[in-house]
């Protein structure tokens, strides 16, 4: 959500300065970045240190002060909270401390790590990179610069709306369902986009390409984008969660960096200058994502962490997850 708010601000700022033809066209938007860190600095300065960190460092009194500032107004509760945090830190230390990176690739956790990495990486393969440089895409599709910036602003606002829509959507439908339908829809749109750019180019096809670009990023922001984070949060085992998120994020960058080059090369006039025809490329990668998800992405919705542990332990195939019933007595 905050993500789309940021992009709306950028879109608005660059739109209002896009007609200037001196360096202030980009310097003003850069300068606008200062509005964030300065007040934040003050806020962070005033906020207390995390009590967890303080306890791990053995700074008990400061931790108590932090808890008092963060926590409830009721007296007495704070000491209890502190005691409980201390106990948790102790138990953690007894359990062998922090899990190691290699733990991610052992036994059942390997499968869970791979799913996390796949979901993270696939964010780059379903046409999202068109949305990341939307304005440039619109221009290459034959839209005038001023209108391209306007469309970009509209696009950002629509993404915000899509993010809101995704909230009830995640409540109603399963993760796997949303992921598969979202990817299938976007793959189709991407191929249509390719076709639009291949037929004889008119004013009409230019607008069709721009509209398809907007639809694709709208669907992404309503389905694939937010659902990916739910899947990532639920797939890894609780113990390894912080680690697997980090590794997944790293995998995301490993996939994204060359893909950014490809995305730029596809659109740039000094590169292949393909405009909407890049839809064929991203459409194909989206199909690959869809197929992998169809065979390997389990349905996680409505399961407790314990149930998921059991399901992964039994090596249940992804497509059977939804049908498998775990009995209360099951404890394997």
């Amino acid at each position: 959500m905050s993500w789309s708010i940021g992009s709306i601000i950028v879109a608005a700022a660059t739109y209002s300065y896009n007609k200037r033809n001196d360096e202030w066209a980009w310097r003003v938007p850069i300068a606008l970045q200062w509005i964030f860190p300065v007040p934040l600095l003050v806020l962070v300065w005033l906020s207390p240190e995390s009590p967890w960190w303080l306890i791990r460092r053995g700074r008990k009194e400061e931790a108590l002060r932090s808890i008092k500032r963060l926590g409830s107004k009721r007296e007495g509760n704070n000491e209890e909270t502190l005691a409980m945090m201390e106990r948790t830190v102790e138990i953690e230390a007894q359990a062998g401390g922090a899990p190691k990176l290699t733990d991610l690739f052992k036994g059942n956790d390997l499968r869970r790590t791979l799913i996390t990495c796949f979901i993270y990486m696939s964010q780059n393969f379903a046409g999202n990179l068109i949305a990341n440089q939307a304005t440039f895409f619109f221009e290459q599709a034959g839209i005038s610069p001023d209108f391209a910036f306007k469309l970009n602003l509209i696009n950002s606002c629509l993404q915000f709306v899509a993010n809101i829509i995704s909230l009830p959507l995640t409540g109603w439908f399963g993760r796997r369902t949303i992921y598969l339908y979202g990817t299938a829809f976007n793959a189709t749109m991407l191929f249509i986009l390719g076709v639009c750019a291949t037929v004889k180019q008119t004013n009409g096809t230019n607008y069709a390409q721009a509209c398809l670009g907007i639809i694709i990023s709208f669907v992404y922001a309503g389905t694939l984008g937010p659902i990916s984070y739910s899947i990532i949060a639920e797939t890894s085992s609780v113990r390894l969660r912080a680690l697997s998120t980090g590794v997944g994020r790293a995998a995301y960058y490993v996939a994204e960096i060359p893909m950014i080059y490809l995305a730029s090369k596809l659109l740039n006039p000094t590169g292949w200058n393909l405009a909407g025809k890049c839809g064929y490329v991203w459409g194909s990668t989206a199909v690959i994502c869809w197929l992998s998800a169809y065979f390997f992405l389990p349905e996680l919705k409505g399961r407790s962490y314990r149930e998921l542990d059991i399901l992964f332990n039994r090596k249940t195939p992804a497509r059977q997850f939804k049908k498998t019933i775990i009995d209360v007595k099951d404890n394997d």
Partner: protein
Amino acid sequence: MSRTVTDSLKVMESFDMFLNGNFVALGAFQQKYGVMVAAGEFSIPTKWQSALFQAGQCGAFVGVFLAGPITNRIGYRWTTILGLILMILTIFVSFFVSEMNTTPQLSTKRISGQLARTSCSRPSTGGYSMGLLHRQLSCICVRNCTPSAPWCLHGYSADVMVNWFHHRRCRNILLQQT
């Protein structure tokens, strides 16, 4: 308050991320740092266009790994403060970098090509360190919620896309660890 901070950090991160994307399409930016592709039409060369985006992501990649150790050492609060101070400084760099190359603007295609190379690379380095900081900051947000709490990474998903209703839960867990 912690919610305001995490939300603003996210807004800030996406601001930085989408900014470069828009510059590539900006007429004045193309003319200054681009090469001529048709009469009167300029474009940023492919490699610099992708470099502009990649720089931030490379920085973020490093940031993912740096955030943990740094936070363990100096704590969440000081890591964030340090990050924010560095961020303010790097924005200075990107802001003033453009001033260095204003004179040879109306030169031939070749010179402007070279100009693109030197000048784009500088904002890129600025972008690199900013991406790094942003990622560090957002990792801290996540880590703030994560220590050994099961529900917390839901807070991360929330953080990125739908943060309002999970944040409260996240904070409660941070305090209560139920």
